[in-house]
């Protein structure tokens, strides 16, 4: 496998614009793209790295690039592991010693090899021995101190339910608009597409009223229903269903299949590619949704991850550690979706122009 692939790979890596070597504009292009990689991924990578730093290390200035932790050793006669320091001894030599305790500016140190002899040194004469280590406490305390799983569940519930409802509602409407011939069809289509002109931010106040009158304030359904019908979804699915052959539907009708059965058993499975594209978008829209949840969900037990992150940015002034961990966990699902479906998403957007 590897040997079969390697000529192709070498060819791929050394391919140029046909002149045999890289033109200076090629170097410029690759330089620009490299800069792009650093500036697009850099900030995210930095946050991920920092989320694995201990609270004490997060306070350091200037910050170190990688997460470090102090090395500890187990010394005979002491049940707890002791922190290791590099100590400059009075005679000028340097030794690695474990610290027993610290009293004021004095620290009691022992040599791990000879634990009986306790040496007192000035705290200024020692510095911690550090090694690369991932502090996971930002993540573990997130689960203990905050209702992380509740927010996660709220987000997952809203995202999954809203996506399913949206796919069902939009595909039904799209089928009617694509394959039926009835009076008023064009009017319905225009009314549907016209809602593209009305961005959700403009009708914020009355939507709040409608949601509250329906008794849906502080309920996930108050976020799910207002976004369940989308002009983009109806349009995308209708365009796809127009390409399905009418003969298929006619044949099913000959066999006495009901309209509902035709939609469910024939049209939906055939529209699966378009449904998949729309599902990816719907998941991204809903997972990242902010303004509507912000006005509908005001009780913290109903918060989605986005709302929780927003509310904690004020409360957790000193707890950047937890906030960073939560940020990483929130961007993780989208990053995974992106990693696996990058090709579909980018080509889907390039052809449909939706976001």
């Amino acid at each position, binding site marked *: 496998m590897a040997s079969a692939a390697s000529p192709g790979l070498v060819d791929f890596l050394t391919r140029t614009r046909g002149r045999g070597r890289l033109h200076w504009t090629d170097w410029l292009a690759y330089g620009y793209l490299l800069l792009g990689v650093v500036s697009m991924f850099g900030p995210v990578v930095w946050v991920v790295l920092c989320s694995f730093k201990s609270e004490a290390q997060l306070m350091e200035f200037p910050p170190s690039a990688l997460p470090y932790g102090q090395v500890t050793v187990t010394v005979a006669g002491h049940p707890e592991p002791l922190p290791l320091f590099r100590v400059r001894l009075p005679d000028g030599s340097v030794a690695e010693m474990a610290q027993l305790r610290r009293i004021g500016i004095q620290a009691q140190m022992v040599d791990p090899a000879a634990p009986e002899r306790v040496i007192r040194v000035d705290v200024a004469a020692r510095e911690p021995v550090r090694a690369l280590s991932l502090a996971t406490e930002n993540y573990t305390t997130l689960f203990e101190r905050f209702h992380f799983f509740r927010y996660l569940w709220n987000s997952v519930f809203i995202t999954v339910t809203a996506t399913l409802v949206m796919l069902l509602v*939009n595909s039904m409407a799209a089928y009617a608009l694509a394959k039926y011939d009835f009076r008023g069809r064009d009017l319905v289509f225009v009314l549907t597409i016209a809602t593209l002109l009305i961005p959700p931010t403009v009708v914020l*106040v*009355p939507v709040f009223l409608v949601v509250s009158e329906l008794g849906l304030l502080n309920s996930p359904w108050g976020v799910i229903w207002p976004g369940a019908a989308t002009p983009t979804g109806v349009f995308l699915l209708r365009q796809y269903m127009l390409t399905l052959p009418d003969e298929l539907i006619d044949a099913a009708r000959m066999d006495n299949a009901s309209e509902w059965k035709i939609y469910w058993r024939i049209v939906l499975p055939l529209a699966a590619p378009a449904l998949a594209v729309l599902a990816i978008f719907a998941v991204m829209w809903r997972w990242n949704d902010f303004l509507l949840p912000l006005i509908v969900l005001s009780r913290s037990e109903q918060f989605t991850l986005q709302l929780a992150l927003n509310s904690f940015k004020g409360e957790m002034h000193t707890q950047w550690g937890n906030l960073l961990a939560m940020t990483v966990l929130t961007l993780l699902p989208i990053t995974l979706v992106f990693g696996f479906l990058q090709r579909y998403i980018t080509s889907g957007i390039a052809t449909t*122009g939706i976001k």
Partner: protein
Amino acid sequence: MSRLAPLQRLADLVDRPMVALQRRIGQNRFAWVFLLPNLVIFGVFTYLPIALNFVYATTGGLAVLPTERPFVGFENFASLLDCRDYLDPSTCSKDLFWRALFNTGRFVLLQVGFMILFSLITALVLDREIKGRGFFRGVFFYPVLLSPVVVALIWKWILQREGVLNAWIVAFGGEPILWLMDAGWSFFWVVFVSIWAHMGFYTLILLAGLQAIPKDVYEAAEMDAASPWRKLTRITLPLLMPTMLVVVVLALIKGVQTFDEIYVLTGGGPGSATMLIVQYIYETGFAAQPRLYGLAAAASLLLAGLLMVLTLLQLWANRKSYRG
């Protein structure tokens, strides 16, 4: 199919009443059954709110229910538009509204201008015969998928007083800067972060536009020994113009509605230096006490008017790009 079996059975359960319904209303009118849920949701959550928006904008008081609100005519609009000098927000009775309006204008001009410029450069680079084009295309697109809250928190962490940016400044012998406490700098970063988060989307569309330019035009130009610069300015850019127009108007429409990332990054601050129009509506109608729904609705109708103009511009641009 077998994994979908429970779903299938569920739908088959619905089938019997659906068949009965179909017998009553006929095959062709069954289309309305398919349309119904969609129409009801649009009606209740889009068209009804549009009508209600006018009701709110022309009534006053603090009540939520429209029936309990006294009619005030155009008072809300009048107070929003009441200014002695329209170029100086501090002379307006709702000075915050005007500050938000001015900020939005400044933000949109800077953000759209620089974002389209960077998107165009990136698209041009990606249009070359680049190794791993798919990968690089994905790189620029990645931030588009991140939620605005996550984007804002990532940059808040970088820009904070003891953040990595200040660490670099100190390492090069400078003084740390309070990026988000200074009006000028925080406006700069709001524009920067918003470009960072959205440029990948516009890059993709411009790239699709570039790849739609027929190759034989370039071949003809090469026959005539045209310089690369000449090919860019005489072929690529003119032929890209229609796509460009669509992208600019789309970016304008999105830019005017920017809220989430700025709200989390700066909260509109310091003071009201980075407060945009949507945040003004949110603050007036929901965050501030008392909640002035009427004023917020009037402001959102003014915003709707602005967006309507931009959308008409887009439809016009779209038609132009179809004609080529």
